[in-house]
């Protein structure tokens, strides 16, 4: 895989920081006792998470194929 190291390193750094923010928010919410959200917001969030995970899986598979 031929990468522009500056660009890819920057993108990976952004991904790591965003994941940390998500992890931190979820941990805080769990500590507070999980306030119930509207169902439509939860579904949209799940769909977005699934889409991002799918995109990551595709990227990893492409990188493995070289």
């Amino acid at each position: 895989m031929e990468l522009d190291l500056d660009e890819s390193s920057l993108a990976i750094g952004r991904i790591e920081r965003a994941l940390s923010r998500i992890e931190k928010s979820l941990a805080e919410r769990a500590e507070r006792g999980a306030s119930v959200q509207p169902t439509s917001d939860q579904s949209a969030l799940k769909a977005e998470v699934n889409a991002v995970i799918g995109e990551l899986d595709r990227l990893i598979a492409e990188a493995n194929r070289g």
Partner: protein
Amino acid sequence: MADVRLNIAGRTYDLTCADGEEPQLQKLAGLIDEKVRAIPGSTEVRQLLFAALMLADEAQEAKAKVDRSEPQSDSLRAAVALAESRETQARDELAAARREIEALKAAPPPAVAAAPRTTHDRALLQIADRIEALAAKVEQSA
């Protein structure tokens, strides 16, 4: 002009020829005399007739041999021409390859920073955008 004396079949012939041609005439007279002497026991005229016939036969045979070898000569000439053409082509290709090598040596190395983004780079940036947006949504909902 030069005077030359030829001896053929025991008879002497005095002739005039161009300057410098005497040795050649002597040589030809020798050939005729040799043929005449190979035909003994006949009149001089018949000896000369047979010598002329034998020499004409040899001349015809020699001409036929030359004619037969001409196609072969043509093939050889064609082969030589083809070989020369290929040599020229090979020299041209070699010169072109040398020029290409020199140009490559002279050219500056490709700038890594200027390389276009790959599909993976773009995908990584898009994912970073989406995860950051997701993080913002999660933070808002928390």
